[in-house]
């Protein structure tokens, strides 16, 4: 049960094991999309479920995401060759101008990647133009912004405005400790989530996946 053991290795937060098992499965000729879907992505869904139920703490979610990402890195060359169907969409993500806090943003980026999205992480202290240019250049489906400081949060609205002014078709998502659904709605963001697993759900929902 090769794919099942990949699933188990992600749940046990063992990156090395995941890499080893993914290589083994590829060698055996197992369908790469089943390694991805039933092995890695299914495992992250389970991790998200355990987190929501309070069984998993945040560091466990983070380590599982790292294990899964390690697996995807091995899988990536084969995925591009086999089919692009497994790519769920492209996300440009960053912490807004004036803000250096990136723990939450990194977790969301990793979880999105784990769910099969192509993620371009712009880092921290990202200004409006950088968001807009990256969205154009990468042909992003979603632009996701994070802020921890209440004083930098208003910058999110500027980015959303600029995206609309540039008539980009991408959806926008916002998150971070001070951000609420009400704030997200008011500034015209398409999506908001309280936590990282929720962000993945929201991204799927926005793209109708």
């Amino acid at each position, binding site marked *: 049960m090769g794919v099942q053991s990949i699933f188990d290795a992600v749940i046990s937060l063992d990156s090395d094991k995941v890499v080893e098992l993914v290589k083994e499965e590829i060698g055996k000729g197992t369908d790469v999309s089943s390694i991805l879907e039933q092995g890695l992505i299914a495992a992250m869904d389970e991790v998200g479920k355990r987190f929501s139920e309070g069984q998993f703490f*945040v560091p466990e979610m983070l380590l599982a995401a790292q294990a899964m990402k390690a697996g995807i890195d091995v899988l990536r060359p084969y995925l591009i060759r086999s089919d692009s169907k497994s790519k769920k969409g492209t996300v440009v993500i960053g912490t807004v101008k004036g803000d250096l*806090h990136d*723990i939450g943003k990194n977790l969301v980026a990793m979880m999105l990647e784990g769910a099969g999205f192509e993620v371009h992480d712009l880092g921290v202290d990202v200004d409006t133009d950088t968001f807009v240019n990256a969205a154009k250049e990468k042909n992003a489906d979603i632009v996701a912004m994070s802020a921890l400081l209440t004083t930098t949060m208003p910058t999110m609205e500027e980015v959303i405005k600029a995206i609309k002014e540039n008539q980009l078709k991408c959806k926008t998502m916002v998150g971070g400790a001070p951000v609420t659904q009400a704030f997200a709605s008011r500034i015209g963001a398409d999506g908001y989530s309280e936590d990282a697993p929720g962000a993945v759900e929201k991204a799927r929902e926005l793209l109708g996946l």
Partner: protein
Amino acid sequence: MIKQFANLLTQDEVVNVHEASLEILENVGLLVRNEKARQIFKRHGCQVDSQTAIVKIPRRIVEECRKSFVPRYTFTARDPKYDKVLPDDSPVIVTASSAPNIIDPKTGEERRATSTDIANIAHLINELPGYDVFSISTLAEDAPEGQFSLSRFYPALKNCLKPVRSNTPNMHDLKQVLELGALIAGSEEAYRERPFINHHYCPVVSPLTMDVESTEAVIYLVEQGLPVYGTIVPNAGMTAPMSLLGTLVLGNAEFLALATLIQLIRPGAPLIYAVLSTVADMRSGAYAPGAIETAILQVAHTQMARFYNVPSGGYIGLTNAHVNDAQSGYETGMLTTAALLAGADLFNMGGLLSSLMAFDYAKAVIDNEIALMLKQLKCGIPFSKEEMCIDLIAEVGPGGTYMDKVHTLKNMRKVALFPKVATRETRGRWEEDGRKDAHQRALQEAINILKKENPAVFPPELDSKIRAHFPGLVPGEAVFND
């Protein structure tokens, strides 16, 4: 006064924490994202890697800077009678600040705060005797473009004579706010004589990173000789080790890095060793400033501050509660009591719920009462032969009463604190009075104050001058319709 502060570390352990911090600054260093700060460190002999922006601070430089640390920090007020000096006037009680939201006093619902809310809160804080410094409690959602900070500082200064404190997100806002200060003072020189805007930043983002904008503001203000201090905010499990001692060491290293930068710019510039050291709730990653570990860390940081002979304190007494309930009370009460007994000087504690996310009027009034209790606790037991009352005890003797003694009449209005929120009624009277809980009583007290005219407002001529100088400025009037 408190004659023996509570300690959680021995003196040897304090020295060990200091040594460990020096080792970190020398061997690991900080990521300094601000160019000017890197140049200052470099000029004074720190090792600066221009590729990685890592700055390593040799111990001799930190130790040299320590020699210019000063033990006092002054909060200047619009009205000099409200000036506060740390540690002489401690505990100095400050509102907690920059929440985006407010609990609407009429609907009880959370909503975004506005500049009018800031004006009302400023009026309230001006009137509540427990508060010494008004750190601007909320943001102002109605701020016109280009006046983000002005829309906070103007209503705050207009309605409060006590020292006003807050931050600005960039240099444009900082300079605009200083312009406002000069207008109020009458001239730039007059403002520099008594700089009543007290700037605060968190330029160090844990772990071991100095940011661009806040660091820029700190450098500018220190160069100008204007008041500024920083708070160090490590969060165990997230941005600091999942260890109380490890977080103390990291936070202490970060304080020393900031203090070193400040002393390199202007030796003798006043400092506060201010922290908000917390332990993250790893179940969800939630920020937990109301956790008891925040108090444990505050006590230890206060010991470190005593070792450096600088005033101490920080955001202590915050709560994670979303309403003014028992949790809100016990978190604020326990955390501040611990910090007070440890000798902390500065308490950024008042008025906010939901871990700094929302201001609540009743919370501010209850925290005022907690503040008065802390001040009373700090007074301790005045000790003298006379206070021992040996003659009086002999006079009354066994079985008598002190009720009818002149001594009692003379002292009964000053020995004990008379709370306004806490009830001392019998159950029957309390029921007759509508079974009001502390929140309801506190909210009523806030409304009573807000309905009165505010004595602190600007003279009309000054106000028109300011309004002409900043076109489109928010009204900044305290208006409260019941």
